[in-house]
């Protein structure tokens, strides 16, 4: 009896230790067992949520986990390697993806063209009936190659070609050309998709082939790299020094001249005044136009005055007569016949 009781008690204690596997819920949960998901649509008990948040949330999550596990155990079980395993059904809930949706691949040039023109791909048969060989020959692959070989056991040299050409070689080279072209186009498409600069012809410039500006820079630097900083180097007729950002700094002997110090306001004023003086001095002292116009002007004035004076003719004569009376200076030279006065200078006479 004791033992039984003891065992029962122990069992009970054990049971008390674990919570019951049955959980009562007001509303049933929604399950998605495939992704081990349960939705609890019941309202939260706000009172207990506020009073003891952690405990409440803990018990709630335990209960819901219990319900989910119950659901899992309802599924058929298997035993693999001593372990009980449940095969989950496919999940019903659509989960958001972690990574962004991959971008569509950029179209190749042909695809773009086909799209624009509305060309659709036609499905070709994998093999074709060959009339000559009287059998089905695949479009590509080693059987095709073999068939080709069988067919072309002899190739005629056309009339217009050099009779000594090896037609087989020619064909092979054509094939390699084709492959190469295809490869080039593939690379071009990739380059286009990745927005890589490629020249229209030739191969892209890489570090092993310098650009024109690089060459020019190198030349300029090289030229300046003498003991006298390139002062005595000859110049080509139209040679230009390399220019651009950062080039000036790498040319030897150039850095120091970089910036002239800003002049003080006074100095600047002096400079300006000097410059202005030189400009003003350069201007012709005698302005020909002005002189001519002044001359014309004077002439006009004179003429108009003459005109004015012409009218009162009486006055003119009068004036002249008067002038004659007062004019003592213009005496007729007497040519030595008159009295000589050595102290008086006579302007009209030549002295010997």
């Amino acid at each position, binding site marked *: 009896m004791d033992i039984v009781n003891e065992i029962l008690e122990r069992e009970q204690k054990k049971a008390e230790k674990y919570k019951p596997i049955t959980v009562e819920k007001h509303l049933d949960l929604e399950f998605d067992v495939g992704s081990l998901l349960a939705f609890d649509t019941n309202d939260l008990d706000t009172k207990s949520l506020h009073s003891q948040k952690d405990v409440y949330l803990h018990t709630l999550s335990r209960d819901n986990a219990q319900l989910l596990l119950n659901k899992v155990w309802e599924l058929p079980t298997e035993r693999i390697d001593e372990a009980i395993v449940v095969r989950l059904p496919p999940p019903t809930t659509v989960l958001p993806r972690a990574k962004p949706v991959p971008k569509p691949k950029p179209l190749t040039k042909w695809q773009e063209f086909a799209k624009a023109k509305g060309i659709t791909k036609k499905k070709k048969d994998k093999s074709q009936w060959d009339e000559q060989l009287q059998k089905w020959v695949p479009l590509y692959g080693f059987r095709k190659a073999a068939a080709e070989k069988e067919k072309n056991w002899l190739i005629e040299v056309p009339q217009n070609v050099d009779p000594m050409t090896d037609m087989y070689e020619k064909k092979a080279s054509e094939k390699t050309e084709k492959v190469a072209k295809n490869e080039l186009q593939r690379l071009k498409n*990739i380059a286009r998709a*990745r*927005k*890589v*600069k490629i020249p229209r012809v030739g191969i892209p410039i*890489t*570090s092993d082939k310098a650009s024109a500006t690089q060459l020019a820079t190198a030349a300029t630097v090289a030229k300046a790299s003498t003991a006298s900083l390139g002062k005595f180097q000859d110049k080509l007729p139209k040679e230009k020094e390399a220019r651009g950002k950062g080039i000036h700094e790498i040319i030897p002997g150039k850095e120091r001249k970089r910036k002239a110090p800003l002049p003080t306001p006074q100095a600047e004023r002096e400079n300006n005044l000097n410059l202005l003086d030189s400009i003003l001095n350069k201007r012709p002292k005698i302005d020909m136009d002005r002189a001519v116009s002044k001359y014309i002007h004077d002439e006009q004035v004179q003429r108009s005055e003459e005109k004015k004076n012409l009218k009162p003719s009486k006055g003119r004569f009068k004036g002249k007569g008067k002038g004659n009376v007062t004019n003592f200076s213009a005496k007729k030279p007497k040519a030595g016949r008159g009295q000589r006065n050595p102290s008086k200078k006579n302007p009209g006479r030549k002295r010997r």
Partner: protein
Amino acid sequence: MGRKAKFDDEKKVKKGPGRKARKQADPIFKKGLIEEDNDIKKLSHRQKQRAARRAKKKTELAEKRKLLKQAKKNVAKQKEVVHPDNSDDSSEDEEVQGFTDDNKEWLKPKQKGKSVQKEPETESDSGHEGSDAKGDSIDEDEIDKPGNEKYKLGTLDDLFKDSDEENGDVDSDDEATGSSNKLAYNSDSEEEKSDDDDDGDDDMLPIEKANLKLKKKQKLDKKLADEEMQLNIAKQDVFAFPSEEELQNPTSLQDVLQRIKDVVVVLSDFSSLKEDGRSRCEYTDLLLKDLCVYYSYNEFLMEVLMQIFPVQELMEFLEASEVARPVTIRTNSLKTRRRDLAQALINRGVNLDPVGKWSKVGLVVYSSTVPIGATPEYLAGHYILQGASSFLPVMALAPQENERILDMCAAPGGKASHIAAIMKNTGALFANDANKDRTKAIVGNFHRLGVVNAVICNYDGRQFPDVIKGFDRVLLDAPCTGTGVIAKDPSVKTTKDQKDIQRCFNLQRQLLLAAIDCCNAKSSTGGYIVYSTCSILPEENEWVVNYALKRRNVKLVPVGLDFGTEGFVKYRHHRFHPSLKLTRRFYPHTHNMDGFFVAKLKKFSNVIPEPVKDEDDEETENKEKDEQPKEKAEEQSKENADKKSEVEEPKKQKNIKSNPLKRPANSSETQLPKKKKKPRKQKTKK
């Protein structure tokens, strides 16, 4: 040999083209080869310019076309609907007076006449209304003043008829017809009608004549009916509160106006005139709705306005906001004198007068035969077109010669050039504007007006203290909602809401703080900041200034203008600092200029109170200044206590209370928080 056994069939080999072919990996490109990832080719500078020009041209063309169309329509319309144009302004003058005094009796009949005229407008589609109004306003510019002068002589009627006439046929020689018409209209109304007829039937189709006749008859009928109704109303005398249906059914504007007036009357003597069982609230709500309908404001703005003004004043304000203010010009004292300019302009056929005793440079233009913005005098920079209200902040700033002055929001440079003119081109003037396009206008105006001492720059005003500080005076004409200049830009009526206002005053606060920071308190002549807006909302004015008072070491000083109304100290739940009385407000209805606000602040210390300070020299200065504003500090502390109720930023408010440092003036050693104490202690040790 044979096929390979498939030991793990779980692993699937991918199917697809080239299953067997070894796929080549994509090539690796060198870094230098990869282009930058800009798909769109950038336009070059020139291309951009060209595109901008093209777009501009296009819009201009479209606008022109639109205008042309409208003009055409107007011409077509004018023949039919001559009256609606002047109905607006005619009603205004009266309704303001209509109910202020007891002379309802003799004013009412006229009102009827107006209402008759009003009718066609309400019928006409709203599309033309705008253009009509435009035409109207232009008309008014020209006619306003002579009209007012004649006011005393003739009746109101002839004034409007006069303007009307000019509206109709502007090109005909105005004076002759105008005077003759005037004579005719001065006689009684019967003659007037016959006159009208004579004028009209020169070139009218018979159908038009018939139409005119019919209209006249209708008018007469309506007039009679109105008279009857008015009689009834007069007898009734008490305004009956409209029922629900009445409210819901849309009524004519005329009825709304009538109702507005009635409600205003009721509200003016509420206890005796109210209907039993109706609260004041109901009446004000009704008024609000009616005003919104009549003046086409949105409800929010109207509500705000109602809180600012008492009802009677509100009506005046609304009416005044409908009419454009007279054009004013400011003489450029750098280039000419007012008398010379007035003489020159009069010679060009401009009718003008001094703006008032308060300004020595302002001139009001009543009418002009030449475009006032394109005369040789204008181009030579002898004057600038500027609203009268724009003189005020500069006069308040009172710049002195040889000072360094900042105008923070200068475009288009009217006020800034005024400052330069007062300084007589000495000192240094910084004109800043945040909008790069608008700085071009400053450049143009400055060069035109011969301002040579200015630096024009383009910064966000808020960053300006980082650029340069130490100005003697700072003018901040802050960007605002423009509620003071509704007449200029009627879109304000409907577009502004709480968010806009909030955005505005937040910006204004930051700008004002920046402006204060730019100013130098130690300046011997200045240390003044003038804050102005063209808004009348206290949120953008007093509140902003109040905010700055709390956060910087500034105090308000008298503005120096002997007119204008005092700023608010209380507004709704806000209690501002009592010194805000020193600010000045200007309203369109009382001062006949745009609504405006001007506040003048004096900075008394360069210390910025809020953040932690580490400049010792400023601290010492602070101490020195302590004594000076002591009384002020007391006031401030009192007010802080008052401000408990302030809703906005309650946390900051708390800060203020706990941290008396906000105003270093009343801070004493004991109250200083620990952070602050350290440097001071060091000081004392030294």
